[in-house]
């Protein structure tokens, strides 16, 4: 059985305890909501998209260390990126979480997010890690609709 340290890397605990980009954004920023029916986690992602670029992002909601830190790291990773790159990152991340098939696009860099790789060894926690990303993807869809 993998140990706790495989799951809870230091950088994850850091993002959990000091979440980046907490808060809300007023309209015209879009708001997307996700929840994990298994554990009751709820997340809100606010996205400001201007000229094809995610200029700002905020996270609200409650959740476990994995879902919260994943959201925090995501917010840091996508801010300032253009929508295409963000989508590529979502795809790369889900691939790492082994819930998207196919060869990973290794040209997309995960950076700190690689710390979440250990979650794969704890299959029930994958949903926690992915919650923010699915909600982000929904937010992108809304902002482009």
């Amino acid at each position, binding site marked *: 059985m993998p140990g706790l340290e495989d799951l809870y890397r230091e950088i994850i605990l850091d993002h959990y305890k000091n979440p980046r980009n907490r808060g809300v954004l007023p309209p015209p920023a879009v708001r997307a909501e996700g929840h994990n*029916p*298994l*554990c009751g986690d709820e997340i809100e992602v606010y996205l400001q998209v201007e000229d094809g670029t995610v200029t700002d992002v905020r996270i609200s909601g409650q959740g476990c260390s994995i879902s919260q830190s994943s959201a925090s790291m995501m917010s840091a990773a996508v801010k300032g990126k253009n929508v295409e790159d963000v989508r590529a990152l979502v795809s790369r991340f889900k691939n790492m979480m082994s819930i998207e098939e196919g060869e990973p696009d290794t040209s997309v860099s995960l950076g700190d997010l690689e710390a979440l790789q250990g979650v794969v060894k704890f*299959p*029930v*926690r994958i949903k926690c890690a992915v919650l923010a990303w699915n909600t982000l993807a929904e937010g992108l869809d809304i902002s482009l609709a």
Partner: protein
Amino acid sequence: MGFDVEKVRADFPILSERINGKPLVYLDSANTSQKPRSVIDAMTSFMEHGYGPTNRSAYHLAAEATDRFEATRTKVARFVNARSASEIVFTKNATEALNLVVRSWGGANLGPGDAVVLTHMEHHANIVPWQMLAAEKGLEIRWVPLTADGLLDTSGLERLLDGAKAFSFTAMSNVLGTINPVADLVAAAHRAGAVAIVDGCQSVPHMPTDVQAWDADFMAFSSHKMVGPSGVGMLWAREEILEAMPPFLGGGNMISDVRTEGFTCAELPAKFEAGTQAIVEVVGLGAAVDYLTAIGMANVRAHEREVTVHALDALKGRFGDDIVIHGSPDPDVRGATVSFAFRDVHPHDVSQVLDQHNVCVRAGHHCAKPLMRLLGANATVRASFYLYNTPAEADVLCDALAEAGDFFCL
């Protein structure tokens, strides 16, 4: 790829039972099938070593139980060639699966005056739910008649389907053994704009199934008839249809959120799986699917065809006009279920004499009373063979029948 019936028999513990020193001749598999060692062991060892809740708790015992449970869904999907595992919904039996279709799909899509087409060879499970909805909503039920040989009489099918919203029919009759031309019937339904619902209870356990090749919309089937545990049934349906349907039973697991003001549904397939599922039974079903897959459904069908040919020949050869076998004599359009009338001996009495020889057959209406009325009988004797039955067992059936004749018709 050799099919060895003796090896198969050795896998089923109950088949080595002796009662009063005589072997058990189990010819009632159309009713419910026996279970192989691998299914029994999968259930037992799961309860001894791995039992836990599914889709709820996060500790690894629960996660592994969930994996075992969901693995069965994938196996079942592959077994019937569904597009994806989330097209498989677990129910308690095929009856619940059919009720689910009628209530959820029918409840949302049918209204006063709408027509639903059934056939005259349906099992009560594919009749009564429709009658209940029909009484509530004022639906019209139309019936496809049968030929003298017990096949569907499709000569007027187009007319019957004209304007109909649904065509629900069995892939194989549980009384006559008739194998229906499912793909053709689905195509006819679709041409008329009707949804095609297949009762696969009798076909899935006995021959290869390909719901995509059929192009069907729904199929209901049962674990306990395909060497799997009791207490589980399955509904396969096209994902888009399931997505569009309202839920059936309400409760835990099928929700995404619940507030005092209302609830929202979970994603497929959880949406249709309310409450704690038949966890151990679904795990056992996985072993059953593995078992049948390893043997190969084409081999099962070929073996049953052989036993059926032998049984039909033996019965006709020995009893001639003293026996009336219902359904088609052509083994290409029938499965291994053989219903008959024997002289003027009542089926219940025939079954009683057979029982003295441990020959287990069902005597009755087989949950198909409208068909019985068509046959002009209250009851028939039904011997149904499966992968573990032998031609020799058909001979034991004949010997026992002869004794019933001696006893009642001197």
